[in-house]
């Protein structure tokens, strides 16, 4: 049996035409009856792979089945309307084949690579590359290498930062440890240790979290004064 590749057909008529031509048959009801099975196989696949055009394929499948039944049981009475609709398929295929031929002709014209332009051609679309006359392939190659080296650095960069990042849980542990050994500390002294802006932010988030959990309490005597960090009083005596 002929293997049909999926997704390469413009539609059911295209598929039918290909099936018939692969078997070197002319367009006829006999030929259609012969390829019905393959057509149905293809549609079965389509159900999974590309259900969007399924309806178009099913319409043709139904017609094929009428033709096939008629070819197996010539005495079968299916009603004039059904039969007529099915046998119109040869006409439809023929018409489609004609337009495919026209399309092929258009392609030949297209492949002459001739084209005309009107005055509304957009000059800004021009692709212009005017290199410095002193540029040689060597220079270009060198600057490309330099660029590659610089890019390498840039790509490495974030990886190094990642290593230095302090997680909030680490910071929380650190602050808890500090407070249990020093009884109190201050925001300013905590921030002094910070190596980066990220760490400052993490320190701050850790403090907020510890305050929320009532493990520490914060005191500030006036606006913009240093913030004193102490153990939460409820915890204080019991834990000490």
């Amino acid at each position: 049996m002929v293997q049909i590749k999926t997704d390469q057909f413009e539609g059911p008529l295209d598929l039918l035409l290909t099936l018939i031509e692969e078997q070197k048959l002319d367009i006829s009801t006999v030929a259609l009856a012969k390829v019905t099975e393959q057509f149905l196989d293809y549609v079965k696949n389509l159900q999974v792979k590309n259900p969007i055009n399924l309806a178009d394929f099913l319409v043709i499948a139904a017609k094929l089945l009428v033709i096939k039944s008629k070819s197996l049981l010539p005495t079968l009475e299916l009603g004039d309307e059904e039969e007529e609709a099915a046998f119109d398929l040869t006409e439809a295929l023929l018409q489609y084949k004609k337009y495919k031929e026209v399309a092929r002709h258009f392609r030949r014209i297209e492949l002459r690579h001739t084209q005309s332009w009107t005055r509304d051609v957009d000059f800004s679309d021009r692709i212009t590359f005017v290199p410095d006359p002193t540029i040689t392939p060597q220079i270009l190659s060198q600057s490309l290498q330099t660029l590659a080296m610089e890019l390498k650095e840039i790509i490495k960069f974030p990886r190094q930062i990642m290593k230095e990042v302090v997680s909030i849980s680490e910071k929380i542990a650190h602050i808890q440890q500090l407070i249990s050994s020093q009884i109190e500390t201050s925001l300013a002294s905590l921030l002094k240790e910070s190596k980066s802006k990220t760490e400052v932010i993490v320190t701050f988030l850790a403090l907020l979290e510890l305050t929320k959990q009532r493990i520490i309490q914060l005191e500030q005597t006036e606006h913009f004064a240093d913030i004193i960090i102490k153990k939460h009083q409820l915890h204080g005596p019991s834990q000490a």
Partner: protein
Amino acid sequence: MDPVKLKSQILSILFVASNPVSIKEIQESLGVNEDEIKIVIEELVAANHSSGIILLAHNNKLQLASNPDNTQVVKKFLSLELRERLTDSALETLAIITYKQPVSKAEVENIRGVNSQYILRQLLIRGLIEKIPSSSDKRMQLYKTTLEFMQHLGIKSQNELPNFEELTKNITLTPQAPPEAKIEI
């Protein structure tokens, strides 16, 4: 009007208008009857092969364009790339519209046997076809090819497209041979 003068006037109008101009618009500007204009246009189109600027005429619309014979030099001068090649389904749909125009979406789909909404929209966006309301039913849209389509294929006049019957004359239904015919062979 003197045909030479009329020709000259039409060309001047088309030169300053970079967009397609309809025959009706020219008629209104010049106050000449349509037939006179059409005769002159036919002459101009016939002279396309020898001119650097050609007149594209299609669906009663006119536009001046560069001669496709000069594709290479124009391309080089403007540093342009050629338009992208059309896909098989695009060409198939254009083939139908070219010979059936003005044609409805339903008719296109009937011939192709497949939903063509998407491809029609693609062609509209690329300017290769245009929509017009149907004269019999205002709610229905019909599709036509455009001057841009001629530019894309680099054809100088509609006559360059082959006659449909001529092009497809070999595609026929072979009559079912009666059983005795086989024995004779």
